[in-house]
């Protein structure tokens, strides 16, 4: 028989609930479910019992189409630029500064040299924080006084890297709400002045629906080139990966799985898909 909307209703609703319980934003869950419905309506089945496994495998394919991973070293090598600068952006407390330290360790393990730009000149303790990481990693950090222009710090760090033949500049920025126009304008200015080779959006995987808004708004402000999701070790199901990927269609490079420098792993879409289907 040919599947009707009515036949699919129960399975589709179950999949939408599965997505939402894994922290996929409502709008994305609905969008994916309606795409799944469009795909499946009219397909022929022998028995009604075949519906769920059929929907499941179509669902799996749909999720695979909507999740992309990426390799940072490949991206860096491909551009062949020295220094190659990476700007880390995102809302407050998602793990940007800690992620910079992890990425630094990762890149240094692959023989690259780097310098930090302490371009969060606003938050209490932000400069001391990145300085501690820099000292532990034996990396130079360029910083100005609190209250200084973040764009100037980024610019300075890039100049320093150029003059000292350093491979990479990792630029830390202050956390900010995507709804704060003043701070988003400031971010745009930092981006314009620093003109980074890669901008990485750092998202907290425990975030709910707001992950969608964050990715969309940040992406309108400065183009996001890639994503890192943190705090996976807190047992997040990773639905934010789907929300973010579906909306800005950029690769997720890494997952943060703890607070130590070693706690970073390449993103594997299968992991999220298994959480949703399992």
């Amino acid at each position, binding site marked *: 028989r040919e599947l009707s909307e009515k036949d699919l209703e129960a399975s589709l609703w179950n999949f939408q609930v599965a997505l*939402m319980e894994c922290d996929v934003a409502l709008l994305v869950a609905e969008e994916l479910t309606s795409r799944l419905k469009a795909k499946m309506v009219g397909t022929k089945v022998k028995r009604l019992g075949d519906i769920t496994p059929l929907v499941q495998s179509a669902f799996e394919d749909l999720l695979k189409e909507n999740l992309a991973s990426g390799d940072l070293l490949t991206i860096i090598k491909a551009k062949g630029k020295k220094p190659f600068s990476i700007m880390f952006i995102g809302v407050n407390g998602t793990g940007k500064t800690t992620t910079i330290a992890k990425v630094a360790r990762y890149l240094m393990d692959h023989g690259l040299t780097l310098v930090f730009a302490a371009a969060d000149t606003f938050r209490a303790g932000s*400069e*001391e924080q990145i*300085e501690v990481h820099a000292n532990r990693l034996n990396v130079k950090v360029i910083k100005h006084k609190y209250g200084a222009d973040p764009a100037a710090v980024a610019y300075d760090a890039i100049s320093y890297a150029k003059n000292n033949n350093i491979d990479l500049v990792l630029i830390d920025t202050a956390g900010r*709400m995507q709804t704060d126009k003043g701070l988003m304008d400031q971010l745009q200015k930092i981006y314009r002045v620093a003109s980074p080779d890669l901008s990485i959006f750092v998202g907290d995987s425990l*975030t709910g629906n707001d992950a969608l808004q964050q990715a969309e708004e940040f992406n309108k402000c400065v183009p996001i080139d890639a994503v890192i999701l943190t705090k996976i070790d807190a*047992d997040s199901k990773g639905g934010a990966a789907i929300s973010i990927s579906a909306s800005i269609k950029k690769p997720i490079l890494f997952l943060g799985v703890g607070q130590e420098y070693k706690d970073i792993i390449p993103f594997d879409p299968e992991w999220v898909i298994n959480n949703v289907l399992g």
Partner: protein
Amino acid sequence: SLSGALGSAIKKVLRAPVVDEKVVKELIRDIQRALLQSDVNVKLVLELSKNIEKKILEEDLPPGITRRELAIKVVYDELVGLLGGDKPQLPKYPKGRTTIVLLVGIQGSGKTTSASKLTFYFKKQGLSMGLVCADNFRAGAYDQLSQLATKAGAEFYGDRTNSNAVDIAKNGVKAFKEKGIEVIIVDTAGRHKNESDLLSEISQIAEAVKPDEIMLVLDGTIGQQAMQQAEAFDQTTKIGTIFLTKLDGSAKGGGALSAVAATKAPIRFIGTGEGMEEIEVFSPGRFVSRLLG
């Protein structure tokens, strides 16, 4: 009379379930979608939906209220009820005595920043404030809290060389008690439900300093993990109150409902920005209205 019979017949037609069911389903769906987008727990939303549907199909419409208004009122009342009712107590601590508040929560939720907000709030009540940095893990934690303490006008205690957070907490509280500080806030490192030794560190700190209040600082952007995470903290030490942060963005904070359900702890304050003055007393009514969009 004829007009009376016609009148009641018309009323019956207007009340006919055939007319209402489709409208009701749509109504429930709208409310469901608003709550889901606000990060309310999925199971809770589906459960609420069943309750509303029952109530608005069975109950006679009070005069002058549409079925949509009744549905929203039913959800509003139920959620405000879950949050302890719309009579927010104005948080107060006693003068001339010592109150010890222990801040706990997930990494990055806003504990350290909220310590400065609590300082701002309670200083206005004329209370003397002391902040203890019992986070000896995070890079720059000492400097962050010390800078905030200076800005907010609180005494600060920290120990860069002590590798034992329990000791730092104990020594800090002791030092502030001796100084007669009225409100002592102990800030801790972030931790989550899977870090069992970090969670047991919380019970050790609580055992050492005997706090009057353990405040869970919860990120307002948290999604479906809110319930399990809050449960884990509550199973470690009884959570007394909740501070819900980052509500100045677009997130509605629906996860907080699960945290309240899990801990039975009231939400006392919300954070509405990065500055220390960006703190508000929690109002269940305003919170729920925002959840419902």
